[in-house]
């Protein structure tokens, strides 16, 4: 009863996705992720000759570069898709001509955004699972897998991605732009949050910036729980950090959306 907008939006998006992109979209996403994994594999074996600097092991907590990059890319895919789906939801409604009818209804925004996110999470989880299976022959190994720690880390990661997407949604709605804002953000997050290499290699100011973004903490937690074998207790500090950051981003995101939404509606409907 209380989550009807959430469930309805989840179901609506699922039906639309099945009708609009039956297979090709799914396959396309899996293939993109696999290309990235394969390029990491060849880079490690052909370019680095299977050798990493000692500093890599010290910063990353593992010497397994291929697994490090593949896990980083899986989480990056989850993040990109969550951000895309949640933050573009209102602007998509505008483009499809349904924003007016949506705004006429007395629905809760948080449920609407969560519905969008959950549908995407389900689809992307399938893509990530397929991607990991395909990457097994290339040497991806969960050498230190801790199930509960990884599960909690994954849930907190999704919440943190959701919180960032709210801020991006406000930005997109205000500028009525999707491509420039989203692609800039994704490129920045890929470069500074430790998707392909530890953040410690970055210059100090960028490291400070990276520490303020929940994606960096999310990647640390997932890698520590899948490659480093760290349990819940050992990562309490990281869990608290990501939870606090998500709460701050969520609060800022909802406040921004509330403010931007009325201004945007004035622009759109006025």
């Amino acid at each position, binding site marked *: 009863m209380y989550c009807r907008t959430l469930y309805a939006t989840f179901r*609506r998006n699922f*039906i639309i996705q099945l009708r609009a992109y039956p297979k090709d979209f799914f396959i396309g996403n899996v293939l993109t992720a696999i290309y990235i994994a394969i390029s990491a594999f060849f880079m490690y074996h052909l370019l680095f000759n299977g050798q990493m600097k000692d500093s890599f092991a010290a910063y990353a907590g593992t010497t397994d570069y291929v697994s490090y990059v593949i896990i980083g890319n899986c989480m990056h895919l989850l993040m990109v898709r969550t951000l895309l789906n949640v933050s573009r939801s209102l602007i998509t409604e505008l483009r*499809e*001509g349904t924003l007016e*009818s949506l705004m006429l209804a007395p*629905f809760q925004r948080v449920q609407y955004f969560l519905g969008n996110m959950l549908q995407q999470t389900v689809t992307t989880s399938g893509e990530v699972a397929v991607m990991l299976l395909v990457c097994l022959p290339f040497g991806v190994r969960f050498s230190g897998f801790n199930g509960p720690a990884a599960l909690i880390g994954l849930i907190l990661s999704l919440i943190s991605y959701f919180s960032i997407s709210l801020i991006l949604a406000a930005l997109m709605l205000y500028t009525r732009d999707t491509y420039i804002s989203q692609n800039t953000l994704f490129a920045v997050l890929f470069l500074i949050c430790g998707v392909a290499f530890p953040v410690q290699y970055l210059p100090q100011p960028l490291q400070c910036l990276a520490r303020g973004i929940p994606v960096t903490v999310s990647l640390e937690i997932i890698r520590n729980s899948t490659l480093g074998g760290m349990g819940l207790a050992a990562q309490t500090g990281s869990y608290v950090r990501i939870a606090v950051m998500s709460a701050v981003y969520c609060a800022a995101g909802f406040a921004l959306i509330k403010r931007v939404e009325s201004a945007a509606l*004035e622009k759109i409907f*006025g």
Partner: protein
Amino acid sequence: MLIAENLGKTYETKDWSGFLRRKCTQVEAVKDVSLEMQKGQIIGLLGINGAGKTTTIKMLSTLLQPTKGRIDVDGLDGVKDAMKVKKRINMITGGERMIYWRLTARENLWYYGQLYGIENRLLEARIQKLLSMVGLSDKQDIPVERFSKGMKQRLQIARGLINNPGYIFMDEPTLGLDAAIARELREYVKDLARNDGKAILLTTHYIQEVEELCEYVYVMDKGAVIVQGTPKELALMGIENKVLCLELNENHELLHASLTDACMSIEKDCLILWDDKNKTYTITSRQDMSGIVTRVLLEQQAPFRNFYHQEPSLEDAIIKLSRRGA
């Protein structure tokens, strides 16, 4: 009852007036609009493009916040209680927007029903009732993208009624539809007001629709209501000249001179036109010429088929009133 009092909407537009300087301009889109909607009544909101009709409707439907004035919907404040007001109102527009093309008709109504928080059992019954009302029961499981324009518009009506609103705002609902479907839609609208007791506010550019449907009309121009009344009252307000038509059975040579003399004696610059093909006189004047024309007809014993005042047209009246302005 829905009451709007002194509604106003001012926009601020910013334009570059120099290299780094932006000039703010205030545009008053709606000024002091007051209107009332009662259950079971269809009200027309007319005016030329840019008159402020759509902005007014969007304020009434909570999509835009008025910068001035008050909206009261059954005792609820249209701005402060917007979430409660949304449950009592809905909007139907022309065109093919406001519905999800990749969903079926049934799925569309189900989704909107969920957004309005309608109980599942009630929602299912309402969906079936609405689909049957708009004649889409047998097409309910087909994605909307395969619908014709008329079917999409009918689904729009069903969507606009999903929350069983007391007040419905219709913004050019028959835009782009062919005559047969437009007529069908007008019948739905009539039914909604007369049988279901809905209050409907209709904006349209088709005057025939207003004459057929509306009991009361507001005419807007440059953001303000310039005149209001029943369609008949408005038509009379717009006319400055009276038009008298006299249809003869055959040519009557003597009549022309007598008629011209008699009419000119009352009003020097009256206009008398003779249509030889239809054998009809059209006399346009500020004063009523029926008395003098009757006298001339009796004097000349001219046989005639018909003799009547031409009905004032609402369309002409609205154009004239809009041009004349407040």
